[in-house]
């Protein structure tokens, strides 16, 4: 595999069957600790969301629908395997003060665990709530897009385990073409609501390395509809800080002026 090619995931949720093989494979390969034996009462989802101890998360949504020709009420299942987006403009990486978060030769975003000092800045910076601190360990953890496997020419554990190819791994360009084709097929078949999420390079994070085909609005799956990398506004923030700093100096100068 040629190095310096952007690799990613295309998660086609229209063919996800909710088997959670990806969750299990990820945990096994990456030795991710147990995230609790919880009963959440949220359909078949007892994982809840991505965290330091969950790097693939399958969402289950039971939507009431009216079956068109029969006029019957029923439900439709939406199932989607969520993962770190490996953003083109990754807030986690940009705010990391130690350089522990870095961009690999595959254009993925990975934490170097021997450098992370657990400052936690990346956690609230991620617009998707992906990266998280493992309290017992003190450091932050998230999907590495199986950096170790990629280096050995293997595909990530989740993609390999997915029985329906809902999770597709490959060169980013190729995946985007495939996604556009698949969207066309679904639209021609009249699947309302089918949409690509994160495949647009002009979005607020410059597009995702791991993007999705969804069957409803992103927020239905717990995803932000128009994420923006927070550092986009950083120049404006520093400008405001400069104004505030000068105001502080001015106030001190005015306060200390000797009355004549």
């Amino acid at each position, binding site marked *: 595999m040629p190095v310096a090619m952007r690799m990613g995931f295309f998660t086609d949720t229209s063919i996800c069957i909710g088997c959670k093989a990806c969750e299990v494979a990820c945990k096994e390969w990456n030795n991710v600790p147990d995230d609790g034996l919880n009963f959440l009462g949220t359909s078949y989802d007892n994982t809840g969301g991505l965290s330091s101890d969950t790097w693939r998360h399958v969402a289950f949504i039971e939507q009431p629908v009216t079956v068109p020709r029969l006029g019957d009420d029923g439900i439709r299942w939406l199932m989607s395997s969520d993962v770190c987006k490996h953003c083109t403009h990754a807030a986690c990486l940009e705010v990391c003060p130690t350089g522990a978060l870095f961009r690999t030769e595959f254009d993925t975003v990975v934490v170097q665990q021997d450098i992370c000092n657990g400052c*936690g800045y990346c956690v609230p910076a991620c617009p998707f709530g992906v990266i998280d601190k493992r309290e017992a360990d003190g*450091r932050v953890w998230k999907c590495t897009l199986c950096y170790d496997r990629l280096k050995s020419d293997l595909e990530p554990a989740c993609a390999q385990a997915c029985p329906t190819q809902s999770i597709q791994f490959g060169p980013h360009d190729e995946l985007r073409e495939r996604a556009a084709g698949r969207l066309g097929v679904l639209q021609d078949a009249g699947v309302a609501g089918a949409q690509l999420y994160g495949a647009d390079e002009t979005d607020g994070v410059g597009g995702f390395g791991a993007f999705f085909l969804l069957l409803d609005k992103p927020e*239905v799956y717990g995803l*932000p509809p128009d994420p923006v990398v927070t550092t986009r506004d950083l120049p404006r923030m520093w400008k405001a800080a400069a104004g505030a700093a000068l105001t502080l100096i001015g106030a001190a100068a005015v306060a200390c002026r000797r009355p004549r």
Partner: protein
Amino acid sequence: MTAGDSYYGRPVVKAPVWKPAIALYFFTGGVAGASSVLGFAASITGHRRLARSAFVASAAGLAASGPLLVVDLGRPSRFLNMLRVAKPTSPMSVGSWVLTAFGPASMLAAASVVTGRLPRMGRLAAGVAAALGPVVATYTAVLVADTAIPAWHGAHRELPFLFAGSAAASASGIALACTPVTEAGPARRLAVLGAGLELGAFRAMESRLGEVGGPYRDGRAGRLARAAEVCTGAGAALAVLGGRRRRSAAVAAGALLCAGSLCTRFSVFRAGFESAADPAATVGPQRRRADASVRSA
């Protein structure tokens, strides 16, 4: 927000993992930064007693800040990794470097003014500390604003002014409590200016945020905000009314100003957690933006 606009009401962004030590650091760092500015301004205008109080307060604020920052790390022994790289895109990296330069300068200025030794070196250090102090007092505002938390990011224009005002109010409060009343005139004036900036910036922030600013009005962050308003306002009033004549009034004013500044910092800190927990705060504005861009396209 209807049920279909979130995934079982779960948050979209993660709440910070920072402990209250960090909110406390916003206060101590503010005291350290603003005191170095007040000390320098006081010393070049001949307010020697006041300058001395301010330099000592700056060093004390700094000394308190270091441990607060280190204990919050998941791996405290690796705190030096903060200086492994210099990254302008990370306000925490910028802050670490600025503190590294500010710290010794603030300490040296205080040591020199207390012992009377190395006066020229002390003056140089005081100048360096006064130049960096405003950064120390305001970069923390950029740090919290540079996140995906709606009540923080949306306030990125006002937060630096809020933190600068809060820093000035607390620094002048400490200075006027630790200085004879006849010498503390500049501290009283700075207390009023700082308190005005703090209260004004908070109002401006709230009105800009609109519904995303809910946490600053309701719940624990809202209660802290109201306490801050009362303490800061009362502290500034007491500083000018009673603080001119009686030292006891000046001490009480200083305590109120510090309490107000602390409440402000904790209000902002708490609001971040409450904002992160509410999926509507993240999804609502983004959905409106997305719909608007579809319409305009």
